[in-house]
């Protein structure tokens, strides 16, 4: 047990001591120009959730269209194409990629680490502004500037770069993607430097909570892979606007080259989504079962292993695209190697649950739901990694179901679980637990009804991105599955509305949150809820962040406190290195 000294940057006046980061200063400008990682995290969260709402509306439009084989919503297939493209592009670039690292990560990382802020607070604010700037371009596309965007979120060439094929909105969208890429790169850089340089004494690498390991692995991918996306969309932009032939065979280019470039980023991007989600689950499972995480080092290293292998598997998106046989075989082999560290994590979580004290509250339900959904998402990856079966399943709804199980059912469910976990810390309020469980039940059931159906829909041959499916040999069968799937999506949407409702209610009328409502042992639970501007009024104690035996329930504050029969180590007044860079 060691003390980390984190003195406040200015003398603590009684006035400030009562204040928290939410009330530290007031006014809209104090938010927009804040350097406080917590406020930036909260702003990201608001932005991401707003965009999640927009992307969700498009998802419902897409699902409703598919209620009938002829299409129930859009007369013009081009409008359906716009809808699924915006759904995908918004959810990937504006929601899932920034959701955990930028929103939750920004809020939690420095506090968990025991630092007062990230290494470069101004760069952090700049990242957020870039995110907003990128969002503006997507909103332009949303209102159909230059005809809007109908390329799919993958912007495949030569469709996207041919005048008269894809609408001109693709130019605006790729500018947005380019800007968002820099937002992501800066956030990643910030996190890497923060974890390397701002770990307080006592916080060794192997004392870091696993969420931080996951964010670290994620940041590595963000920094190394995202520039490739930026270059790729820049080339696409130049081909479309100036007719420079990079990808279009009519101009002497190679369309498969684009796919290599695109997936060189976009496959690692899948791990930008899922790695931090896994990190959240490691925290949630351990904290809510009050049990030391099982196999800490295996989990930590599996995060790094996934990040490294994740760079080497992009070709499995291209098994039917025109790669050589040898390359397909190699990519298939490496793809299987990624499944191992993922499996290890699942087994470790299960072993953590074993003989724990499992509290079935809302965050934990999301974590348990994550294990089940991620198991399905991961296992169906086997069908797709296996070359012979992938040929049949490629570009069908089987793939759609698989990646929704991973990106939405796993990454986003983990994000929502994490949001519930840190909600008391962020807002200082408790939400209604029963409504929380009800919301989870709707989300879990709705999700599985929506997407499990799509596995069979796809293996029966229904291709993705189809606006209509009339006049096919199996139209009746597809119709049945599409109807079930759409009903599921309505249940899912209802679940999210319930969730939004009780969370908003909690901000205004929720019970005051104790400092440590769940009995967490990592450092963020040692500061007040909400945390003060400088995170820690007194130096937190760095110990084993998964040892719960030192905590006990305190009825008076409805939270956990340090056990009175165990001496709390550490001296709150030791001074040390300043937290800021």
């Amino acid at each position, binding site marked *: 047990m060691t003390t980390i000294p984190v003195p406040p940057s200015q003398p603590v006046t009684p006035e400030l001591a009562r204040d928290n980061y939410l009330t530290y200063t007031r006014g809209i400008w104090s938010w927009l120009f804040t350097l406080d990682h917590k406020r930036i995290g909260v702003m990201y969260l608001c932005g991401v959730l707003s965009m999640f709402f927009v992307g969700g509306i498009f998802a419902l439009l897409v699902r409703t269209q598919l209620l009938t084989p002829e299409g129930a919503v859009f007369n*013009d297939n081009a409008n359906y194409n716009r809808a699924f493209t915006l759904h995908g592009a918004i959810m990937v670039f504006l929601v899932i990629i920034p959701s955990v690292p930028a929103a939750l990560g920004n809020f939690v990382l420095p506090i968990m680490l025991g630092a007062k802020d990230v290494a470069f607070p101004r760069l952090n604010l700049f990242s957020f502004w870039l995110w907003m700037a990128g969002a503006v371009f997507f909103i332009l596309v949303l209102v159909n500037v230059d005809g809007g965007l109908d390329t799919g979120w993958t912007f495949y060439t030569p*469709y996207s770069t041919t005048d008269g094929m894809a609408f001109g909105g693709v130019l605006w969208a790729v500018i947005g993607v380019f800007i968002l890429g820099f937002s992501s790169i800066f956030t990643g850089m910030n996190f890497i430097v923060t974890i390397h340089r701002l770990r307080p004494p006592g916080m060794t690498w192997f004392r870091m909570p696993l969420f931080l390991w996951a964010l670290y692995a994620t940041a590595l991918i963000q920094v190394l892979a995202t520039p490739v996306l930026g270059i790729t969309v820049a080339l696409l932009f130049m081909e479309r606007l100036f007719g420079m032939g990079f990808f279009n065979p009519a101009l002497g280019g190679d369309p498969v080259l684009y796919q290599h470039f695109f997936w060189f980023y976009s496959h690692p991007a899948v791990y930008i989504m899922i790695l931090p989600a896994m990190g959240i689950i490691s925290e949630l499972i351990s904290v809510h079962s009050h049990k030391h995480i*099982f196999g800490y080092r295996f989990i930590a290293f599996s995060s790094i292993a996934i990040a490294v292998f994740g760079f080497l598997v992009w070709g499995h998106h291209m098994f039917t695209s025109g790669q050589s046989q040898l390359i397909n075989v190699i990519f*298939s082999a490496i793809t299987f190697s990624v499944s191992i560290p993922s499996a290890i994590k699942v087994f470790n979580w299960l072993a953590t649950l*074993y003989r724990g004290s499992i509290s079935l509250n809302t965050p934990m339900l999301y974590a348990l739901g994550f294990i089940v959904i991620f198991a399905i998402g991961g296992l169906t990856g086997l069908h797709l990694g296996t070359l*012979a079966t992938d040929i049949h399943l490629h570009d069908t709804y089987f793939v759609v179901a698989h990646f929704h199980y991973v990106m939405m059912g796993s990454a986003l469910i983990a994000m929502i679980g994490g949001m519930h976990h840190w909600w008391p810390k962020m807002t200082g309020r408790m939400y209604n637990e029963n409504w929380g469980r009800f919301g989870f039940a709707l989300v879990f059931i709705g999700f599985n009804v929506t997407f499990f159906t799509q596995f069979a829909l796809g293996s029966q041959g229904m291709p993705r991105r189809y606006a209509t499916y009339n006049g096919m040999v199996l139209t009746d069968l597809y119709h049945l599955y599409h109807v079930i799937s759409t009903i599921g999506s309505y249940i899912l949407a209802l679940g999210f509305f319930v969730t939004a409702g009780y969370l908003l209610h909690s901000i205004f009328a929720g019970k005051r949150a104790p400092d440590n409502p769940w009995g967490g042992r990592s450092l963020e639970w040692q500061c007040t809820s909400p945390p003060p501007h400088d995170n820690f009024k007194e130096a937190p104690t760095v110990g084993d962040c998964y040892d719960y035996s030192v905590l006990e329930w305190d009825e008076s504050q409805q939270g956990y406190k340090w056990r009175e029969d165990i001496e709390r180590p550490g001296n709150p007044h030791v001074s040390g290195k300043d937290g800021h860079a």
Partner: protein
Amino acid sequence: MITLVADIIQAEALGTLGATLAGGATYWMPEQASEVAPKIDWLFEFINVICYIFFGAILILTVGFSIAYRRRKRVHQDKSATHHTALEVTWTIVPLLIVIVMFYMGMTGYMYLDTVPENAYEVRVNGQVWSWTFQHPNGAVEGNQVTLPMDRPVQFIMTSSDVLHAVFIPAFRVKNDVVPGRYRTLWFTATKPGEYQLMCAEYCGKGHSDMLARVFVLPEEEFQIEIARLAQEYMDLPTEALGYYAADKLYPRCASCHTVNGDPGTGPSFKGLWERTQAGEQKFTNGATLSQLQKQGDGFYDPAMGGVQNYLRESILYPQKLINEGYGPVMPSFKGQLKERQVDALIMMIRELETYFEPDGSFKPQPENTTPAEGAAGTEEATTPKQDGGSPEA
């Protein structure tokens, strides 16, 4: 959860049942109609079984632990191990061995799928927005449908005139992207006569979901007769039947962009197109109007000198030359994919649209009592052109 379990139970129940059901269709997989399909399905089911075992174990442990170790007292002091190297190494090695087996089977299956046998029957496939053209070695050309022999390897040699497409035939379990600027191949051996779905599986824009085709598989002898007939069918038709032939066999490839009932589409509707062309109403993106062009030059577009036919023929074979205002330059050229007589047939069809289509746009078959053409080579066949179409039920 209940749906999930029900789905899986149903899957397995149907899976076993399915083997005896029509063509091996199961809950998961469509009918098996190629020689490779049972192999792919076996591998799929093998992976399924492994998935069920692992998922079952994960589900039972997650739910079981959540119930058995639910929180009873406020704080639970746990003393169980925080790591166990032997256990952790075991659950690393065992999945690793399983996926190595899976990889190997997937690889061998794929190498088989991707290695075209010699002496395969070669069909040249062209994908363009948003229709398919299939060319047989004997010169027969089919659009949005292809007639193939049974029990003989068939190779598709595919390319695209514009953007990416993909040929996907679920019943054969084969798929490959169709890429502009290069040839791609696909092969299979169909094992059952019948009609199967071919679809475009790579997103290609507005008409992506209309880019469908039918695959007709015939036993060898019937196939030989049919393919010989297809090579000649439009040559043998009497002139009166040509319009019906175009409306029935050729128009489906135009239908993803051009309507015949006046509804808007990606391209101008065929309804009234003949009259508009005669009057020179078209305005083009280069600023010219057809009526101006009709008065210029050597009278190529002059209606009095066959200019309507010239315009329509040029629009089919060289569509990028004049683009109608309000439309994008998206029409692919059909040069080389339509024979001259087929172009004539289309022009005849456009000229008297009402003869060949119902007001709602559906095909109006040629009346049965039409007398056979006098001069044409056609005999019985020529009188019932609507019924040929490679009907596999025959």
